[in-house]
């Protein structure tokens, strides 16, 4: 195996292990036995098919928000607003689902919901790319702020037009069952959204490495000056990349509303966007790697939840695990870089010695 690739796998593996160990040590503050707790975590996630399937249920939106960060990242753009694009997607999916009711058969209905959500989220994202292209605005700030605006928009609709018939809670009525994403394993919550998410990860890989647009995206990211000199219009890349990112994050909205909850609930999944960034980092922004990184985060979430229910450990341990894993992964970049430099130096010294 290539030495750099070996370093990549080994260092990422150690980073994940260290992240989990670091978070486990915090359990001592609560007087819990970390080894017992993490044994429980490891055994509980493989307890039955329902729990195993739930790992993939949790991984589904994470794959998509991970891609929503990774794709612009390849063009050296920062999309910190996947959370907001996700909310807009969920909102559009809910509005269309409630408006459709039983009017269309399942498949065309679901397709319409998906298209509507992806277009809505895509346009929400494209705005960021547009102001970057037109006014050279800082996309990091704009995308960050757009999340809070999206949250306010969603809350407004949940209080008014989309509020449930009983008018009690800020949530919608349940969607018509024909618009639910079909379950792919009987007796579990695993729905077709997971397959969609994996397909879109493959699509993103193909887009980035096998198409003209993907090539342009990478050139703009790698060397903007060279891109301009070779006639690539950066402004178009900004807009299309952010449109795609917004659409991907919005699809996560569909998988959560139509796949898991079958309704829209105020303030749900508030950490998907940030976790997506973590997953993209863990996977080195590689779309295929993102699938596996998302499954790892999904397992941490499921395990953390079960651990919390069974041993009274607060669910915030999940965020702590994710945070520590991310930090150790960043440290592993440093270690890898150090090893690669040392190797290069040795090769150089050898060739000089001869």
């Amino acid at each position, binding site marked *: 195996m290539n030495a750099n690739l070996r370093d990549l796998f080994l260092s990422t593996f150690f980073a994940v292990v260290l992240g989990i160990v670091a978070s486990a040590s*915090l359990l001592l*503050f*609560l007087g819990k036995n970390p080894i017992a707790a993490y044994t429980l975590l490891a055994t509980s996630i493989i307890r039955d098919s329902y729990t195993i399937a739930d790992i993939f249920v949790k991984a589904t939106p994470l794959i998509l928000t991970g891609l929503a960060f990774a794709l612009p990242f390849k063009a050296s753009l*920062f999309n*910190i607003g996947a959370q907001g694009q996700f909310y807009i997607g969920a909102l559009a999916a809910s509005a269309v689902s409630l408006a459709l009711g039983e009017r269309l058969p399942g498949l065309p209905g679901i397709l319409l919901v998906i298209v509507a959500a992806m277009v809505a989220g895509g346009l929400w994202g494209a705005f960021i790319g547009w*102001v970057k292209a037109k*006014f050279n*605005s*800082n996309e*990091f*700030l*704009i995308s*960050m*702020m*757009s*999340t*809070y*605006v999206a*949250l*306010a*928009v969603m*809350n*407004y609709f949940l*209080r*008014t037009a989309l509020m449930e018939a009983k008018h009690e809670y800020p949530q919608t009525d349940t969607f018509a069952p024909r618009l639910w994403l079909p379950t792919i394993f009987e007796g579990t919550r695993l729905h077709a959204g997971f397959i969609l998410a994996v397909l879109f990860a493959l699509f993103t890989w193909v887009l980035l490495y096998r198409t003209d647009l993907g090539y342009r995206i990478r050139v703009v990211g790698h060397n903007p000056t060279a891109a301009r000199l070779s006639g690539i219009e950066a402004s178009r890349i900004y807009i299309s990349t952010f449109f795609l990112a917004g659409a991907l994050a919005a699809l996560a909205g569909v998988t959560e509303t139509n796949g898991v909850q079958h309704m829209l609930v105020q303030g749900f999944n508030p*950490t998907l966007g*940030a*976790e997506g*960034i*973590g997953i993209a*980092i863990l996977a080195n922004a590689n779309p295929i790697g993102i699938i596996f990184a998302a499954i790892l985060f999904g397992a941490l979430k499921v395990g953390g939840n079960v651990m919390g229910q069974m041993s009274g450990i*607060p669910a*915030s*341990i*999940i*965020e*702590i*695990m*994710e*945070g*520590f894993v*991310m*930090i150790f992964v*960043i*440290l592993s*970049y*440093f270690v890898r870089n150090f090893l690669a430099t040392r190797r290069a130096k040795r090769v150089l010294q050898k060739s000089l010695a001869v």
Partner: protein
Amino acid sequence: MINLLSRALLMSTPLLFGAIAEVFAERAGVMITAIEGIFLLGALGGFVGAYLSGNLYLGLLLAIFTGMAVAAVYGWITVYLKQHQIVTGTAISILAAGLSSYFMRVFFGTPILPLTVEPLKAIPLPLLSQIPVLGPIFFTQNILTYAIYGIVPLSWFILYRTSLGLTIRSAGENPEAVDVAGIKVDRIRFAMVLLAGAMGGIAGAFYSIGFLGMFTTNIIGGRGWIAFAICFLGNWNPLGVLVGTLVFGLAEALAIYMQSSGTMLLPNELFIALPYILTIVLTISRKSFNVPAKLGIPYRKEN
């Protein structure tokens, strides 16, 4: 009206602490993208210290220490290990979110009613507070708000009129020159990150013990990022930052006022979103930015 303006000044206080913190760090070349996490853990530290000791000032002290501890981790990874600032900041902010609710549980278990402390009181300044209109607005504030009257001119003076300020600005503009002068660039940068941690910790504590008297895990709600934005919008200048924070403080006071006044002319959510919309509009409309040349770029000595 007087009430609104006084409230606006109050609400701009933590933003000013945070934004000035960013100015110093970014002038030296480091974006503090962990600022949301620094605010949050500062708020937690402030509350824990104040609640357990019964003294708000010990709370503030603990907030400063927590802020600096978070900043030290951030600075070590970004300044010394030269890792990506936005990525590291995001990781730290996620971790901070988890740690804040975890340590609330560690310290206080799961209380039925939210725990509270008596927040910082307004101290009317003798004589000055008697001035009509100006008195209630400017001279009947708490001690942290009074502090910003000193911090703005002081930070401007340090940055533009002292050799230390020149060194700080050079670390962000032309680090090679600093290096040649025999000053360690990374040391300057790390010191500025620590300073930002201390000020960001105070800013966070302002929300928990300076204003609300309690801690909730969503207490910061993006205010760290707004302080980050104000630093950009204020063109990395303490005076520009002052204008920015006052505008945002006013927006926030207006939002609170409109929500509590009960007039439903416009949806509540619009006012909640106002500071964020304002940031977007201002970011788009600002044209000439004076970005420190090496902002966000780690300094590597040429071999």
